[in-house]
């Protein structure tokens, strides 16, 4: 199974819009949404079955038993994350600030602190007639979602039987979840946007992906909003020897399609036509055998 990951660096460039079009065009039997902080792919996916949901546990978090607490203040003094405070004379741990290091548990002289399992998110799996869609939602305030991203991909891989191609909608940024999504994929498609912010972020994500040595291609969405910047991106790709796979114009019909729960290839529109070209070039590159 070849895995294609769609990333952007900057948010709002159109990863999910393009990923959903690719999934439709490929009639993909396996796909996943790794943007666990703000997943969107499920909003334009059509499933008639109930998904399987499971809890995702992150690091355990500290809880103080106020009956046993003697108010020695050792926990508060030793907490590097400002997670312990006193409210109404009671020592309490801020669930969101707690990083699960367990230093407080260690320093408490009366064993009043325990590390308690914490549900940090929820995994969801849709599976029907050999097609699978894996996604997850991180609970707000949770940190370190790299493991949840890994679980989303693992869930997809273990349920995907006979799938030749898997399409993965990635998350914005360059942090832990992006790194986790890069692990083990065969190719990355970067969706760039022709704004200075978009270019700056694109360079950072390319730098991040380069560390993995994964085949990388770039396309530009909403290219006609700034032709000059579009050219800048094309020149950059040439200099960096990255494969450029095409451009997609800004299209108000794209918004209309998405708002009606459809992909841009479900209706007649210019962005839909353009994305087909980008898709063909990307898939050719993905399945191309390396000549070594």
């Amino acid at each position: 199974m070849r895995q294609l990951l769609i990333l952007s660096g900057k948010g709002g460039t159109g990863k999910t819009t393009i990923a959903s079009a690719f999934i439709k065009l490929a009639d993909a039997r396996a796909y996943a949404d790794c943007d666990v902080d703000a997943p969107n792919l499920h909003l334009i996916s059509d499933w008639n079955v109930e998904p399987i949901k499971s809890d995702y546990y992150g690091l355990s978090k500290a809880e103080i038993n106020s009956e046993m607490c003697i108010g020695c203040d050792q926990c508060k003094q030793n907490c590097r994350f400002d997670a312990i405070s006193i409210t109404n004379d009671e020592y309490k741990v801020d669930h969101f600030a707690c990083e699960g290091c367990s230093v407080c548990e260690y320093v408490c002289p009366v064993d009043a602190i325990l590390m308690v399992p914490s549900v940090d998110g929820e995994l969801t799996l849709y599976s029907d007639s050999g097609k699978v869609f894996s996604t997850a939602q991180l609970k707000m305030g949770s940190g370190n979602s790299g493991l949840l991203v890994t679980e989303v991909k693992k869930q997809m891989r273990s349920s995907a039987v006979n799938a030749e191609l898997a399409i993965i909608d990635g998350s914005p940024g360059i942090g832990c979840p992006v790194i986790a999504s890069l692990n083990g994929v065969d190719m990355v498609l970067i969706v760039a946007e022709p704004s200075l912010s978009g270019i700056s972020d694109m360079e950072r994500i390319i730098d991040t992906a380069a560390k993995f040595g994964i085949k990388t291609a770039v396309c530009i969405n909403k290219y006609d909003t700034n032709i000059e910047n579009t050219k800048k991106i094309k020149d950059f790709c040439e200099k960096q020897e990255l494969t450029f796979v095409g451009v997609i114009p800004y299209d108000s019909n794209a918004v209309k399609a998405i708002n009606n729960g459809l992909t841009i290839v479900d209706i007649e529109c210019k962005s839909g036509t353009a994305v087909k070209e980008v898709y063909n070039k990307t898939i050719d590159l993905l399945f191309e055998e390396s000549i070594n």
Partner: protein
Amino acid sequence: MAAEATDMKIAVLSGKGGTGKTLVTVNLAAAAKTATYIDCDVEEPNGHLFFKPEGITEEKVTVKIPMADEELCSGCRKCVNFCKFNALAYTNKLIVFDEICHSCGGCILICPEKALTEKDKVIGTVQKGTSGNVSVYTGIMNVGEASGVPIIKKLLEPENQEADKMTVIDCPPGSACIVMESIKDADYCILVAEPTLFGVHNLNMVYELVTLFKKPFGVVLNKCLDGKNPAETFCIENNIKILGRIPFDNELGTLNSNAEIAVNESEKYRELFSVLLQTVTKEVQSCGSC
């Protein structure tokens, strides 16, 4: 222009990327007589591209990482077993994995031989500069680091908030712990929403977040087109104050994509953002001690 509420701290956030946080934050700061702009999107900071600040001074942000004195280390492995993040390993000496370490200090405390001390490691920088009437603070996280939270803590240090100056905070997208850190001390939150199905879904997430943190807030609808606006519907259904509407406009799009500050280049947008600033100021004043 109405008098601005001095000292107010406004955080601008959105669940989804690309809705216009930086557009709104940058232009609000520029529309004010004087302001401080803080870019907390440390993974992908963009505000500095618009402000092009001058006179930049830089401060490194460090975290503490343990290091072992091999003479004192007895190889008991208590530190390795304690570390909840698996940042330590022991073969014939202690190995520390800097980027995984959360700097909790636990291993230092637990070592029975007192063989561990701490050294500083740079994870990013905070740059300070000025652009016209705006003090610009930019947080930049080095690629590969585990958490941007220490950089945000440095950015939001009270010393950086100058007296008699409004502060606007450009937050990272999403609602994870890094966003929570950015809004912790804000007096008021502006949620930026785009009129798409995805936008509303993610607006809901930050709506829950600001409600949980009991922050007063309002919504700015961006990229407004004709036709139904699911984000507007969401606000009406939930009794959320709509602070303003920014139309989808090629002129604004072009200015923005060239990293130009709209209020400086267009009278129409100077007017729009000044009005928005007045509206927000009134909201902050009316909500009393927030």
